[in-house]
């Protein structure tokens, strides 16, 4: 019998989107001096709200507010700062449903993911770093490590609220104050977070949220009053930032692109490996810097694995991000969709074989069906460049040594996955792979206690865990 799931949309009534939003500076919402811009729902192209853009003067006001707030915030005992962070974490949990819906509306990701992955991790991150705030002397950075000052933070659109949490939670726990710029296409949850800061009674100026495009980010990064720059986004922009802060004495952490290898050996648990591959590249429409975008499969099981993978891709449900049964949501922007299209076209031109899951695409909005390429060579663009979309490049290998060689043969080095039932091989591979995170028999699993960051062009510095404190302490 055919079992059709009826639409099961999460209610939009839980969110209250205002027609326009200002900047959050010194605890108040104020008008921006730049040209306001619109943020849309990528699944329908409907306008959600108009958002203020911060110009250099706004950035200066925000940094000045953060600088002023820093004196008293850094002077607070850790246990007092922890109280605020715990309070923020609890409010996030209380408002989780609202924030999840808002995230899915603005970003296009399925509600199942924003509800079950993003929001629990956001709250967990604040809880985790709240716990560190009064224990910094035990973190291995000296008896009484000092904060840096004002952190200028620029975050991407793929996990808007989660990246905010990764940036703000450790910064505040360590006693810094922040000026954060969310991505141009996904400002709404950061603005909701500004409300949460007010709700939690956070002193004015400790957190400032500036919306805007690249120019706002550049103004923030280059502001002389910023002591620390934290950026997550493309390697291209990361390079610009590294160049502009060079010689200024600003401390910088960059979390950039990736082209992770997901390596499946012939003795892997096959069904779970298939799930891991799907989760590795189709989670969040592949808009994941650590996505397992290169599948390296041992030649002896390549055919069997690909058959199983294609069968599984046939069950993925693409559509309305607010439908609770949706697995694949919308591509975040027309710009990103164009980039995915251009790279997949180059894959075909270069001779790789394209396979696309047969699923109808909605008429409005930005969509790209789950796609995989077989017959991919290391030299193809789709094997080297980050696509940042639901596109998997499949390569094969014969021996463990060849797997390592191919996996490491990339300018990136953010993550890798190893699938085998042999524990000793997992350890051997983890030792050889030049990637910040190596997942064994799983993929895209995150925990606030676990450090995250890249080798080579994937960036430097670590976020999360005890290691994540270092980026926000004067050590």
């Amino acid at each position, binding site marked *: 019998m055919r*079992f059709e*799931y009826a639409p099961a949309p999460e209610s939009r009534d839980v969110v209250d989107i205002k027609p326009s939003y200002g900047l959050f500076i010194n605890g108040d919402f104020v008008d921006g001096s730049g040209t306001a811009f619109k943020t849309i729902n990528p699944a329908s192209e409907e306008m959600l709200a108009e958002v203020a853009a911060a110009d250099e003067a706004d950035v200066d006001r925000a940094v000045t507010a953060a600088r002023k707030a820093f004196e008293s915030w850094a002077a607070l005992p850790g246990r007092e700062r922890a109280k605020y962070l715990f309070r923020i974490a609890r409010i996030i949990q209380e408002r989780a449903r609202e924030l999840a819906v808002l995230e899915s509306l603005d970003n296009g990701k399925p509600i199942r993911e924003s509800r079950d992955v993003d929001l629990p991790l956001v709250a967990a991150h604040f809880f985790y770093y709240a716990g560190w705030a009064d224990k910094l002397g035990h973190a291995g950075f000296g008896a009484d490590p000092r904060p840096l000052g004002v952190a200028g933070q620029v975050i991407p659109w793929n996990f808007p609220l989660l990246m905010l949490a990764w940036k703000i939670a450790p910064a505040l726990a360590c006693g810094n104050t922040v000026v954060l710029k969310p991505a141009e296409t996904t400002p709404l949850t950061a603005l909701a977070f500004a409300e949460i800061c007010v709700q939690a009674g956070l002193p004015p100026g400790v957190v400032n949220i500036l919306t805007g495009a690249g120019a706002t980010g550049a103004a923030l990064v280059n502001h002389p009053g910023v002591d620390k720059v934290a950026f997550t986004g493309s390697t291209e922009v990361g390079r610009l930032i590294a160049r502009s802060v060079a010689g200024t004495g600003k401390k910088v952490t960059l979390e950039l692109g990736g082209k992770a290898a997901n390596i499946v050996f012939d003795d892997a648990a096959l069904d*779970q490996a298939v799930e891991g591959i799907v989760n590795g590249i189709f989670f969040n429409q592949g808009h994941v810097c650590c996505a397992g975008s290169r599948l390296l499969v041992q030649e002896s099981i390549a055919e069997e694995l690909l058959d199983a993978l294609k069968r599984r891709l046939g069950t993925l449900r693409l559509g309305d991000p607010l439908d609770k049964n949706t697995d694949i949501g919308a591509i975040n922007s027309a710009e990103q969709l164009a980039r995915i299209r251009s790279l997949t076209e180059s894959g075909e031109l270069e001779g790789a074989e394209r396979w696309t899951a047969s699923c109808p695409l909605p008429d409005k909005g930005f969509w790209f069906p789950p796609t995989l390429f077989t017959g991919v060579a290391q030299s193809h663009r789709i094997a080297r460049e980050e696509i940042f979309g639901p596109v998997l490049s499949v390569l094969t290998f014969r021996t463990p040594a060849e797997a390592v060689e191919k996996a490491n043969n990339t300018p990136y080095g953010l993550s890798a996955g190893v699938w085998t039932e042999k524990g000793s091989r997992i350890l051997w591979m983890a030792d050889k792979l030049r990637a910040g995170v190596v997942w064994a028999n799983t993929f895209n699993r995150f925990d606030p206690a676990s450090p995250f960051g890249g080798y080579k062009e994937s960036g430097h510095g670590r976020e999360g865990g005890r290691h994540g404190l270092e980026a926000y302490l004067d050590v």
Partner: protein
Amino acid sequence: MASSNATLRAFLYGLPGVDRVGADQRAATLGTRSIKTTAKAEAIDLAISMVDLTTLEGADTPGKVRAMCAKAVRPDPGEPSVPRVAAVCVYPDLVACAASALSGSGVKVASVATGFPSGRTSLEVKTADTALAVAAGADEIDMVIDRGAFLAGDLARVFEEIVAVKQAAGDAHLKVILETGELATYDNVRRASWLAMLAGADFIKTSTGKVSPAATPPVTLIMLEAVRDFRAATGRMVGVKAAGGIRTTKDAIKYLVLVNETAGEDWLDPAWFRIGASSLLNDLLMQRQKMATGRYAGPDYFTLD
């Protein structure tokens, strides 16, 4: 392949492993599917038609079985549109009673056999138990495997017992109970599934219901993967029965989602997927009525049989 422990072991231990964390996670994710409105109504009727309505108590009597059979044919006396259940499942000595009560109704008679639930008896007793149940009118036989032999590595013994019972069952459909709660690992569940299918099982069934844990979503997921892969390898389709511990409509629908997204829609049919249960039926009826009327009726509006 079936000739010796060595060949069986070589094959069954050569199957891809099962990663427990991943399997649990997949089953849990499928458990978050939201089945509402029309889909829920369809799922409830499908689930009712897949129920093996079961009573397996030492205190079972002919009167109790007759009452259950009446319920099996017409689960809700006030609502003729409710489908009948797939089968009733009883101990062998009550098969004749069930068969006469169900004669001509289309509801099958299933009998547990082979020294259910432990299976700790001789092969002669097991085959005789089976043959007598079939002679008394059983359409389906739910046998238990020798878990002791399986865990001791005597795979050939388990295989041969299934073959012998299948022969004794004749035309009756053979459901092979793996008792997954005693097999301990998911790898063993996969191996036992293949062992039973290779030996000729028409169905593989999770549990007797007498051991905890009984059916669980991840175990059922692994068995559904096994029947899917077995059909791909051999062309023969084998059914799956989840039994024990499925008490609510919500749970039953989760199992249907598992079937739909693992083995596929071919298995969404009472001929290929069953739910062994007793109290589940009334919850399905209650939810069905709620969907139709918008209100819950009290438990006294559903018959207890």
